[in-house]
C-alpha cells in the first residue's frame, strides 16, 4: 500500500516534469560538449562543424577548432598565395583559435600569454607552435607578395598578447605536425600575477580528406 502511494505520488510529480526535463537536458547537451576534469571540454563547434578542444576557468576561455587542410588551402590561395605556397601552410596542422578574457568587469583579471612557452607532446617528443615570426622569415625567403604576407600575418594568433576584461582574439594556431596526428598541448599563461598551466589532452590535427570525384 505504501508502495502504491509512493508510486502514485511520484507519478504526479514526475509526469508534469518529464518533457521539461527532456527540454532542459536537450538545452544542456546541445553544445555536444564533454566536460572533462579541470575545465577542459571537447566537442563539435557549432559554426565550423568540426571538433574543438577548449579550456575555461572563469577568467580565460581558449578554444582550438580544427581547420581542414582544404579550408586552409582555399583561404590562403584567395589571399594571394600560390598553390604550392599555400600547401606549406595546409600541410602543417592548423587550428582556428578563439582566446578570450572572460573575467567580469567587477572582478577583472589580466591575461598574458606567450606561445613560445606552449608545448606539443607527441609520443614522448615535445615541439612548439610555429609562430608568426618563423612564417614571416620563410615568406621573405620565398618572395611572397606584401598583401599575401599581411593577410597571413593578421590571420595568425599573435605570438604574445595582453588581454583585459572583455578582450578577445581569433586567430590561427599552426603546429609542425602532420594532418591527422594526435598530440597533447600544454598551455601556459599569466593570470594577473599568477602563472597557470593546463594540458589539452589528445588533440587531433584535421585529416587531409581528399574526395574522389569518381566516387
Amino acid at each position, binding site marked *: 500500500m505504501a508502495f502504491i502511494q509512493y508510486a502514485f505520488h511520484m507519478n504526479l510529480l514526475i509526469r508534469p516534469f518529464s518533457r521539461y526535463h527532456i527540454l532542459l537536458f536537450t*538545452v544542456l547537451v546541445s553544445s555536444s560538449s564533454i566536460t572533462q576534469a579541470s575545465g577542459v571540454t571537447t566537442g563539435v563547434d557549432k559554426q565550423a562543424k568540426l571538433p574543438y578542444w577548449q579550456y575555461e576557468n572563469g577568467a580565460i576561455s581558449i578554444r582550438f577548432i580544427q581547420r581542414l587542410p582544404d579550408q586552409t588551402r582555399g583561404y590562403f590561395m584567395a589571399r594571394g598565395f600560390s598553390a604550392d605556397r599555400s600547401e606549406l601552410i595546409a600541410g602543417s596542422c592548423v587550428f582556428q583559435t578563439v582566446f578570450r578574457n572572460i573575467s567580469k568587469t567587477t572582478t577583472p583579471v589580466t591575461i598574458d600569454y606567450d606561445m613560445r612557452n606552449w608545448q606539443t607532446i607527441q609520443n614522448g617528443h615535445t615541439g612548439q607552435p610555429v609562430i608568426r615570426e618563423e612564417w614571416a622569415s620563410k615568406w621573405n625567403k620565398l618572395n611572397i607578395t606584401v598583401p599575401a604576407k599581411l593577410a597571413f600575418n593578421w590571420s595568425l594568433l599573435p605570438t604574445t598578447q595582453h588581454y583585459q576584461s572583455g578582450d578577445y582574439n581569433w586567430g590561427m594556431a599552426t603546429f609542425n605536425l602532420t594532418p591527422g596526428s594526435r598530440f597533447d598541448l600544454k598551455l601556459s599563461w599569466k593570470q594577473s600575477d599568477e602563472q597557470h598551466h593546463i594540458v589539452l589532452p589528445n588533440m587531433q590535427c584535421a585529416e587531409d580528406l581528399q574526395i574522389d570525384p569518381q566516387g
Partner: protein
Amino acid sequence: MSKQIFNVCLYLLLVFQSSFALAGNTAFSPLKETFPAANFSLNDINGKTHRLSDYRGKVVVLNFWATWCPPCREEMPSMERARKKLINDDVVILAVNVGEDEDTVFNFTGDYPVEFPLLMDIKGKVIRSYPVKALPTTYIISTDGLVTHRTLGGREWDNDKLLDELRRMQHKPERKQ
C-alpha cells in the same frame, strides 16, 4: 505550480546564459600608459584623403580591421549604429582596413553598409605605427591626440554605457585659471 517554477528557472537559466555571452563586450580598457597617436594620411574607398590630425579636438575611435576577420565584420553594424547616435557629438569613427584593395572593401559594404570613413592601409604602414597584434583592435584617441583606451575583439559599440563613456571623453577637463 511546480511546473511554473520550473519554467521560471529555465527562463532565468537561458537569460543568464545569453547575458553572460554579451558580458564584457560593452567596455573598453584604459591603457596603463597613454601615448601620442601616430599621425597618418590615408584615402577612403571614395578616394578622399583623411589625415588623423584633421580630427584633432574630437574623440577618435580608430578601428583596425579586415573583411575576412569574423569579429571585425560582427562589430561593423554596431559601429554604424553608434555613428548615428553620436552624430551631434564630437566623436568620429575611422576604420582602417589592413592589406586589402578597394574592390574587396567596396564589395564588403554591399553586405555591411556604413557611412563612417573606411580607410585603405593597403601596404600595412599605418597599422605598423600602432602596437596592434591582432584584428580587430580599436584605439580611443582623446581630443588632444593621446591614445587612452584599447579594445581587442569586437564590441557592441552602440551600447549606452560605451556611448556615454565616449561622450564623457569629448569634454576636456577644466583647467584651473
